[in-house]
């Protein structure tokens, strides 16, 4: 089958067949806290959170995400362009500098956030029309979309 697994920063192609079997034919099964790969048993602990999987294996903690192959290739085709201003860390919006619907240029200051007592100014990643998704005083988690820039053409 096609598809990808994101393991931390690593993207690993999924090569599996029914069984399930790994690409080399080894049969895999799970029994309580043990993962069995072709007769070899690994102690394992895991927990699912939506499309993410947390695994404790071999003394390391791994964060996995299933990457849909269609989505993966679409993102790659888009050239990684990103007009969403995502929160670099959890925090709170101190103040808005630009306003909703404003025509902004790349590098313009949009809003000020505070996290760990440090204030950071977030700037426009591209030219376009600004849409704000947060208000002053609002808290957010890491990765939350704070603003989107829509190109004018």
């Amino acid at each position, binding site marked *: *089958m096609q*598809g990808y*697994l994101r*393991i*931390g*920063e*690593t993207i*690993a192609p*999924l*090569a*599996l*067949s*029914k*069984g*399930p*079997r*790994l690409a080399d*034919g*080894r049969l*895999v*099964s*799970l029994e309580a806290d043990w*993962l069995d*790969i072709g007769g070899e048993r*690994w102690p*394992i*602990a*895991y*927990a*699912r*959170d939506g*499309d993410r*999987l*947390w*695994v*404790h*294996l*071999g*003394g*390391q*903690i*791994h*964060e*996995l995400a*299933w990457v*849909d192959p269609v989505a993966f290739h679409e993102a790659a085709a888009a050239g990684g362009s990103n007009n969403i201003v995502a929160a*670099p*860390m*959890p*925090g*709170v919006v101190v103040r808005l500098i630009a306003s909703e619907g404003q025509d902004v240029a790349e590098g313009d200051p949009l809003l000020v956030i505070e*996290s*760990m*007592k440090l*204030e950071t100014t977030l700037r426009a990643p591209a030219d376009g029309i600004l849409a704000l998704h947060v208000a002053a005083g609002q*808290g*957010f*988690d*890491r990765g939350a979309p704070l603003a989107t820039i829509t190109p004018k053409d």
Partner: protein
Amino acid sequence: MTDYPFGSVLVANRGEIAARILRTVKAEGLRALLVAHPVDGWTPAMALADETVMLEGDTPVAAFLDGAAIIAAAKAMGAGAIHPGYGFLSENAAFARAVEAAGIVWIGPAPETIDLMGDKISARRFVAERGFPVAPSVIEEDDPGNFAAHARAVGAPLLIKPSAGGGGKGMRIVRDLDTLEEEIATARSEGERYFGDGRLFIERYVENPRHIEVQVLGDGKGGALHLFERECSLQRRFQKIVEEAPSPALDETERQRICEAAAGIARACDYRGAGTVEFIYGGGGEFYFLEMNTRLQVEHPVTEMITGVDLVEQQLAIAAGNPLPVAQDGLMRAGHAIEVRIYAEDPAAGFTPTTGPVLRLVPPAGARFDAGLIEGERVHAAFDPMIAKLIVHGADRAAALAAMDGALARLTLLGVTTNINYLRRLLADPDVAAGRMHTGLIAEKAGLAAEPPPSTETIDALTALAALVIPDVGAALDAVPDRHAAMGRWRN
């Protein structure tokens, strides 16, 4: 067992330290009282407390800084004493005074001591005047017009500090004296922003310094003893993440000198209760007073592990008016202890805080694990991202490092990104393993922060698990026509 003039202790704190203090409070036969904020959900401290009053505030942090509300809660529960933990109101002299004015025992030093040591300028002046070592420095308010000129005379490198500061906020290192005025202006505006106080002082910056601190206990009447040192040189953004005792840098003579200096400072200020005198230690064996923390420290467990002394029990006994329990020469230390702080943060993303649910939490057997939350709760952005501490003890430093590596490898904490994997890499670093540490080491070895790519073997195992437990993967496999599965058999 100590005879206490109070029958209950309220812990005005949260997280791992609230639980840790309450354990000793209960062991001493006292009623365990707590204040908490709803955002924390159900916590280990709440499970231990005999009674909990919920606090309200504009923000969760504001709730724990609301001294009047905490004293009102203490009165409502009939608290005989208040233990402030660390952070929040623990070094707030006005709160200490208000607690005493309310007829409640304050478990901490006299408010005047908090005032004295809380201001970096008055603290270093006090310490220097009594003959203890401080770094060459310039205090702005001594001669504001010539502040920069006096600083230039001390010579580069320099460290600019806000007088009211703490936790590394607003500190600037100046190596090029041409930028001095500019850096002073930046430090002043940061000081004003973080602490509402733009006063500054500048001192000689010690390159590649170690952070060595000494635990002290004082009776409040001029009697004090030390419980040896801790080394906390492994820091990121001026925050400690690994602490150990004893320091691998000190020989017995140096240990004696630095520990005696700390006890001397505690005696000089009639220190009451548990405190910590922090020093900067240079490569040539020189050490300078940095500051005194007038409270229990996050890293106090390493001292407990090597001395066998329960520091919270000592705080309670001293607050009860008891004399110091032992003489200095009655204190022994054994072996080596290491603590690591488990943070909800992503080392690979510049150690930025993370949030998320704690889906699974299984502490490793054979180690002390002081945790602030339980499985099923969430790590949120409202408070400091430290969620637990892991502490081990070994016969020597190598044994303690090995024990810590094993404990970190067995610690299961799933659902939120933490620094657990990073801590294993950091402790395995050859310089750290050899004890060659300084406060800039983590920044210098920034490459350790990146998660190394998993081995083929690990990818195989994770892929197999994904096929078994991620429904999308399982469904995609099931959708594969039988022909595909059969093909495999034909090929065999």
